């Protein structure tokens, strides 16, 4: 059994303070924990912790707990929570910030398809300047749950047969020029 109680030394208050300085996270401290975000969220049915709890954990500095959660990866950026929030908190932006930090700190759920997909997408665009759907889905499945490929075979076959799925690996010319952009953003971060 895992210890569920939290000691105050585990709370990184400095991180919490810095977090509220990031763009979009400024109003985090005005959260009144009403749960409108969770109630509005169409994906809350699958979340391990609710968006409201994410905000509470961030505010209290429980960095590892929040970065490990699946919730931040399930956010589909529909912005329903940000629209309804009575304190006008940009919850979607908070989620993005958390995803970033989870990748930087390498604490995200390793075989969870969403961060894998995000990484594969970025990597593919960085390398070739274009996204080739077949290969991306293939690589995502390999890294997260290879067994899923079997169940996807039939759909894949139908798509390929009707010309909806190309196995060509596409790329743009002078991809090295595109690579300046992600490199520059890394520097800023």
């Amino acid at each position: 059994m895992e210890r569920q109680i939290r000691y105050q030394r585990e709370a990184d208050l400095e991180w919490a303070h810095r977090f509220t300085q990031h763009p979009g996270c400024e109003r985090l401290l005005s959260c009144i924990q009403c749960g409108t975000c969770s109630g509005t969220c169409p994906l809350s049915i699958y979340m391990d912790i609710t968006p409201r709890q994410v905000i509470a954990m961030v505010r209290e500095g429980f960095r590892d707990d929040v970065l490990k959660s699946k919730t931040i990866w399930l956010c589909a950026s529909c912005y329903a929570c940000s629209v309804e929030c009575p304190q006008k908190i940009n919850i979607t932006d908070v989620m993005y910030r958390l995803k970033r930090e989870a990748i930087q700190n390498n604490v995200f759920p390793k075989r969870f398809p969403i961060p894998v997909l995000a990484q594969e997408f970025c990597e593919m665009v960085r390398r070739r300047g274009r996204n080739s759907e077949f290969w991306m889905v293939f690589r995502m499945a390999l890294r997260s749950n290879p067994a899923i490929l079997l169940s996807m075979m039939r759909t894949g076959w139908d798509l390929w047969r009707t010309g909806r799925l190309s196995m060509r690996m596409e790329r743009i010319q002078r991809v090295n020029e595109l690579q300046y952009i992600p490199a520059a953003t890394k520097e800023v971060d």
Partner: protein
Amino acid sequence: MSEQRNGHVRIGVYICHCGANIADTVDVKAVAEYAATLPGVVISREYKYMCSDPGQELIQKDIEEHAINRVVVAACSPTLHENTFRGAAERAGLNPFFVQMVNIREHDSWVHSDREAATVKAKDLVRAAVMRVYFHKPLEKRRVPIHPEVLVVGGGIAGIHAALTVANSGKRVYLVEREPTIGGHMAQYDKTFPTLDCAACILTPKMSAVRAHPNITLWTYSEVVSVDGSVGDYKVVVKRKPRYVHEDLCVGCLQCIETCVYKDSKFDDEFNLGLSKRKPIYIPFAQATPKVVVIDPDACIQLKTGKCKKSCMEACVERGAIDFAQKETYEEIHVGSIIIATGFQTFDPRRMPQYGYGKYPNVYNTLEVERLVNASGPTSGQVITRDGRVPKSVGIVLCVGSRDENTNRWCSRVCCMTSLKLAHLIKEHTGAEVYIFYIDMRAAGKGYEEFYQRVLNEGVHFIRGRVAEITDWALDPSEAGKLVARVEDTNTGFVRRIPLDMVVLAVGLEPQPDAHEVQRMFGISCSLDGFFLEKHPKLAPAPTYTDGIFIAGLCHGPKDIPDTVMQAGYAAAEAIALADTGFFELEPNTAYVVEEECSGCKTCVPLCPYQAVTFNEEKQKAFINEVLCKGCGTCVAACPSGSIKQNLFEDEEIYSEIEGVLAYA
């Protein structure tokens, strides 16, 4: 030059230790010694507590024995003790406006830690005051007489209570109400929290008392249209709208309503919020005060087309109270003070479409449910939904239009308790499962927490979470034909879907839609939320910045009935005190126009926030009404020819003060 004008100037400087408050950070001895060297200073002393009796006597003795004619007191803030030291000077026979205070506590010792620098600052401030006080002139406080009559605007519980209190003290009161009856929102409520006594039972005796009181002139269906003048003498014009019925002739037999050509009631009954219908000729509710019918000009056939057989008139032929030719009239009154109790409106939940108010018939607001549970309401107290069912599950959604950056930011204060009360009443009437969706349960008040406990023990479900949406979209067979609230139950930590037969939105309270026009007409201010602004949030919560105008009840901000009554009583006490004093003393720091220099450019006229500056067309000069002037100095600064001056802030006083503070010791 100035010595000639001010006679021989002899200044006394008094430095206060304020116990350790000042003396710990400022070397008071050094300041006193320094002050003694300044020109014009005859005596310079320091003392432990200048504001104490011996401290004041020190000043008085110096004035009498050493012929001191200017006093500088370096102590705390003038808001605290200016009157104390002015009084001391006055008692010794010196004009109180020869006293100048220097704030070396809030402005110096309390905000600095470097003793040496703080002492230098104290010297600078004292020097500035000494140089300023040199030029002070003797001023007289002006007194304006107060008319003893009081106007009360708004006939809700606040206006009723204020009017009765003032009237009981023997003063004449004019009570002006916009609707055909007094009673306000309270008359619509069923029970009152937390004691559950019936609102009508406690309110209607007070309404009758207003009607019967010899000192109260009650004008319903009337509105204030203009206010002129200032404290002590406000000239108010009241428009009396035609109700097409002579108030003095109608006895309230209601025969006319029965015989109206409309056999069925067809028009929305405002008192029941459209949950029932009324005829063009109607009485708002059974205990309406005055008990006089009123004709709705937008519904009455005679008033719309002139082609009705006027059966109402036939029914009233003996008394002849009905008069279709009635026109609006205007009454002009003079009053000494005004109590504004114009009330509030409830938040329109259509502004939050996610709750489906106006879309789903079984979504109600709290005021509608108050009428539903009321025994004299549209359903005679039966809680039945609009589709005719007795609800088996009812959800009450809190903070609808409160605590929300998208609508209103403030907490409306009463909705928690109103919801607890309605939960109790609905459970009592129907036996339904009741869910209260709340963010924070605010039950602060005498007996309120106990009531919360009582409702908890009655088995009402308290779900801590703000409802995200109300839909009629069933995701589960158990939800078919019901409304569903989707909400995070933050106590259990998961999102829930709760099927409901009836949803009650606990709507927030907001300023009346015409609050800003009322505010401008009476010359008072509004806070950011649009409610009227009090003079001081703690110590003067009923007076306003305009002397002689007081506010009471929900026009000042959300509050419950006991708080409303308390504020109304307080406003009444202030109005009575003002009337009994008989006069009002004005600070002489007002601005005045030097007529020879005024070019008549009118720059100052629109700038005055108190409407004190007017333009004399005959002389082509600006004129400042001293009674209205608050001494803000806006016109003084704006006047391009420098022909507006202000007592206590004359140019030479300000310039020498600046010179003094900037000079190097």
